């Protein structure tokens, strides 16, 4: 039986519907990341699980119990907020222990539990300080400790690392991963950072404009994006996408007179149907002029990444991004030849953006 079950959940503000019916099952002990651009409804969904927003339609159950009408405190969830939301006038110890104090846990037990949690996130030296005297990373750890001390059934994270700098973010990511491994508590984590999502998630939920676009393991989502939106959103640099159609000979026509022969797509080609062909930059390579299927292109600019570089080029009126690991000098405006790995192609319908499977 799944731990959290979300069935047909909708959210309506005044008259605008912002979440259009979401169905998700979250298993016990799973780490689920909800990923999407800002305004896609991911935080709203999380807040509905937490009980901070009313559920306009549908049903959410936690541990087999429908929680639609339950107060936040009765749901057994703990939440880590984006801006930490620590009580500024309380010490770290009081902040962590507040939930226990409200729950009327006896003082000795409370102190012991606060101590244990503080140890697990290395906050013991700071217990008597106030949030104002702590750094961002320490405040974040207090926020996590405050969530952990209640021993909740579910952890909810609402973009918790968006105020931290890049290095600290990586460290906190590792910390969250470790805590999840140690505690094994079901966790729902909302973020707009795809690297965070890919590295943390057991299961990834991609949301867009109030709809769930795809649910799956991070590698599945990366390798088999279910829609054009997911293909575009996941992966950095973003996937090359070409609008076009197949002709009677089975060649893909795109841009201004561009032709690509794609024998790998034999089964799904429908001549005349508008489609979108996608290929990840790492499957586009620089090649010799005489290679089979080489596409002549002109380099627009090059992004140096250290271990590799990204070549932004133009061919047949379409833009290509290719990952290049060679070191030969490339200058802007230089003609190059690109080849596309036919085995790594993604095909989407141009009408609804859904994947055309092959």
């Amino acid at each position, binding site marked *: 039986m799944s731990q959290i079950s979300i069935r047909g959940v909708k959210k309506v503000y005044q008259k605008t519907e912002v979440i259009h019916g979401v169905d998700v099952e979250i298993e016990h002990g799973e780490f689920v990341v909800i990923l999407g651009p800002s305004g896609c409804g991911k935080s709203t969904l999380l807040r509905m699980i*937490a*009980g*901070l927003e009313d559920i306009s339609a549908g049903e959410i159950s936690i541990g087999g119990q429908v929680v639609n009408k339950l*107060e*936040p*405190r009765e749901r057994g*969830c*703990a*939440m880590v*907020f*984006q*801006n*930490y*939301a*620590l*009580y*500024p*006038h309380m010490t770290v110890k009081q902040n962590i222990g*507040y*939930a226990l104090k*409200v*729950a009327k846990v006896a003082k000795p037990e409370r102190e012991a539990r606060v101590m244990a949690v503080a140890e697990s996130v290395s906050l013991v030296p700071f217990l008597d300080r106030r949030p*104002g005297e702590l750094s961002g990373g320490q405040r974040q750890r207090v926020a996590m400790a*405050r969530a952990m001390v*209640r021993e909740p059934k579910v952890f909810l994270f609402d973009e918790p690392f968006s105020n931290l700098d890049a290095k600290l973010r990586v460290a906190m990511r590792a910390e969250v991963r470790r805590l999840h491994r140690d505690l094994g508590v079901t966790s729902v984590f909302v973020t707009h950072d795809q690297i965070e999502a890919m590295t943390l998630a057991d299961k990834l939920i991609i949301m867009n404009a109030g709809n769930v676009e795809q649910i799956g393991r991070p590698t599945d989502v990366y390798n088999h994006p279910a829609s054009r939106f997911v293909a575009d959103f996941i992966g950095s640099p973003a996937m090359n996408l070409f609008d076009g159609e197949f002709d009677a000979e089975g060649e893909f026509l795109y841009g201004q007179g561009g032709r690509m022969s794609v024998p790998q797509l034999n089964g799904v080609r429908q001549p005349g149907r508008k489609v979108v062909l996608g290929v990840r930059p790492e499957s586009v390579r620089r090649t010799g002029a005489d290679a089979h299927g080489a596409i002549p292109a002109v380099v627009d600019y090059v992004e140096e990444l250290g271990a590799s570089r990204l070549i932004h080029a133009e061919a047949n009126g379409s833009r290509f991004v290719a990952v290049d690991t060679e070191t030969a000098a490339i200058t802007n405006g230089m003609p190059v030849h690109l080849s596309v790995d036919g085995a790594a192609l993604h095909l989407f319908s141009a009408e609804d953006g859904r994947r055309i499977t092959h």
Partner: protein
Amino acid sequence: MIERSPYFDAFTYAVMIIGLGLVVFPFWVVIVAASQSLQEVSSVPISLLPSDQLWVNLSEAWERGGLGTKMLNSMIVSVGVTIGKITLAAMSAFAIVFFNFRSRMICFWLIFITLMLPLEVRIVPTYAIAANALMPFQAILDVTGLTWLVQTVSGVQVSLNWNLLNSYTGLILPLVATATGTFLYRQFFMTIPDELVEASKMDGASAMEFFWDVLIPLSRTNMLALATIMFVSSWNQYLWPLLITTDRENFGTAVMQLRFLIPTMNGTPDWNVTMAAALIIMLPPLLVVAFMQRWFVRGLISRDK
């Protein structure tokens, strides 16, 4: 604007000194007059130098005005009003800011509008209520015919009466509603981030627990600032105590007592005693402001988070 030139400095100092002189001069006159004998204070032109009769005048004023009881009364009333105002203001602002009920904007505006109705304007109806605090209920019973019904059925004449005249309740209760305080609290509560409210909800705190454990400690400076203003204004309250107190001996306040220490047309013009009494009476608010000043400024201007 920062400007540094000797002329400008001299000018600003001059302005400040004139301002200070205007504020301090009346106090100086009070102190001087309070220290002079009857002859000295009656001489024309009056001397602006203090004399040696201060202690004599102070004890005379204390005796004649019965200021012991009066100061105590004033203290009870001022502290009562201050505590009442802060409690009521905090709770009503809490309701208005953190609860989403249908008529909350109407409630807020109703409270806000009373800013335009100072005590002096509503003093007659307020007096009527104070004379019988249950009068509105009596009126409701009369209008709805319940009085008649009860009388017909049981033969008992319903006549509600709760007289607040000549009581501390009467001196305090009508003054505890404060639009200013509610407004100040509302402004402060609105700076509390929503996440803090949500965090306390997730921690399982009820609304009242959030109020006590989070809002009240956070609004401490705010509260002290408000307390200072409210204490001073209720200490200085003159008209209401004068109106509601007929038993001046037991329930008179210090400020209204001052009126009876002013020399009458045909009496001895002993202004020195009057000034000595004024000196005694203005001491408590002065001390409160002096002690609270630090908080006062912080609470009204900046917010230490």
